[in-house]
């Protein structure tokens, strides 16, 4: 039950993108389509779960002073594993996400959860925290990607809903990312404020 609460906390109550506003670079940079957003979200989820679990296992072995560098090395190790796996098995997605895969290392969500949750809790809750936060992040990225793809090209996950001629290209380009995210945060804030 308690683990379930930890999981839901990341998914809804403290959604990393809409509420905590962490990890904005990949959020904006990789969501030109729903599938890219989903891919980035799941990649980050993998790193979050693995690094959270390992850090909660070794938290008692790390001296307090070198805490942050040690966390970064653990995270960077998993990012490298992910990078190699994606290059081998999902080359198309790897190419379209490009630079943002190695940049998961400096994603504030991963280090933030390591510092504020995994370093204080056991392995099982850390796993659920990583899962919840990761899925919350994936959900936000997929939503943002879907809205941008729909407005920009008239498709969602490559399924055409209306003709591409009516698409507004600006939403696929850089400015659209900022504008759509601004409106999504406002809408989420409004819903949260009412409930």
């Amino acid at each position, binding site marked *: 039950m308690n683990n379930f609460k930890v999981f839901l906390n990341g998914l809804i109550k403290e959604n990393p993108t809409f509420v905590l506003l962490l990890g904005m670079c990949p959020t904006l*940079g990789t969501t030109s389509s729903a599938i890219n957003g989903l891919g980035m979200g799941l990649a980050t989820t993998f790193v979050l779960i693995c690094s959270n679990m390992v850090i909660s296992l070794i938290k008692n072995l790390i001296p307090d002073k070198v805490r942050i560098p040690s966390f*970064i090395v653990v995270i960077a190790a998993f990012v490298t594993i992910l990078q*190699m796996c994606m290059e081998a098995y999902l080359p198309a997605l790897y190419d379209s996400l490009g630079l943002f895969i190695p940049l998961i290392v400096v994603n504030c969500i991963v280090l933030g959860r390591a510092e504020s949750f995994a370093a204080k809790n056991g392995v099982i809750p850390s796993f659920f925290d990583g899962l919840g936060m990761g899925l919350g992040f994936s959900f936000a990225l997929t939503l943002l990607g879907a809205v941008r793809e729909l407005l920009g090209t008239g498709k969602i996950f490559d399924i055409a809903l209306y003709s591409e001629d009516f698409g507004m290209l600006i939403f696929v380009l*850089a400015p659209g990312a900022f504008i759509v995210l601004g409106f999504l945060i406002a*809408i989420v804030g409004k819903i949260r404020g009412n409930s």
Partner: protein
Amino acid sequence: MEYILIFIAAVFVNNIVLSQFLGICPFLGVSKKIDTALGMSGAVAFVLTIATIVTYLVQVYVLEPFDLGYMQTISFILIIAALVQLVEIVLKKVSPALYQALGVFLPLITTNCCVLGVAIIVHQKDFDLLSSVVYAISCAVGFALALILFAGLREQLSLTRLPKAMAGTPIAFIVAGILAMAFMGFSGIC
């Protein structure tokens, strides 16, 4: 001429913040006042340039000869983290005034993605050392330009009356979007 092109392309056409989405966290976090925006830009420019030089040398003289390309991410982030600490210590001793101005921003730079991002981009683009340095400085100038423009806009924005749901972050994002649109006007000049 080549260097001028790199400069213009990095500052205006492919602005690091507004079109490549690197360094969004400080872009939103420290852009409420022009003073702090200036301090942050200075600190980023300093670390970005040094980090690019050091990681470039490590890549060319250590990682490539020993065939350790897969260690790039880990080694670069450790170098950047160590470098930020080093810069902090040296600055504290050598120039206390500068340390006062940049001090609070330095620890934040380790997790600023534009530093690691630029360090990786220069290898993807196959730049030589001098082009890399020019590119790093140009990116820092582009970051400063975007940050200071945005801080100026936000100072004005804090005086306007907004619907409650839009106040704060949402309107900041929309303003950033309009600013990005303005920068799109530069595309095609080189």
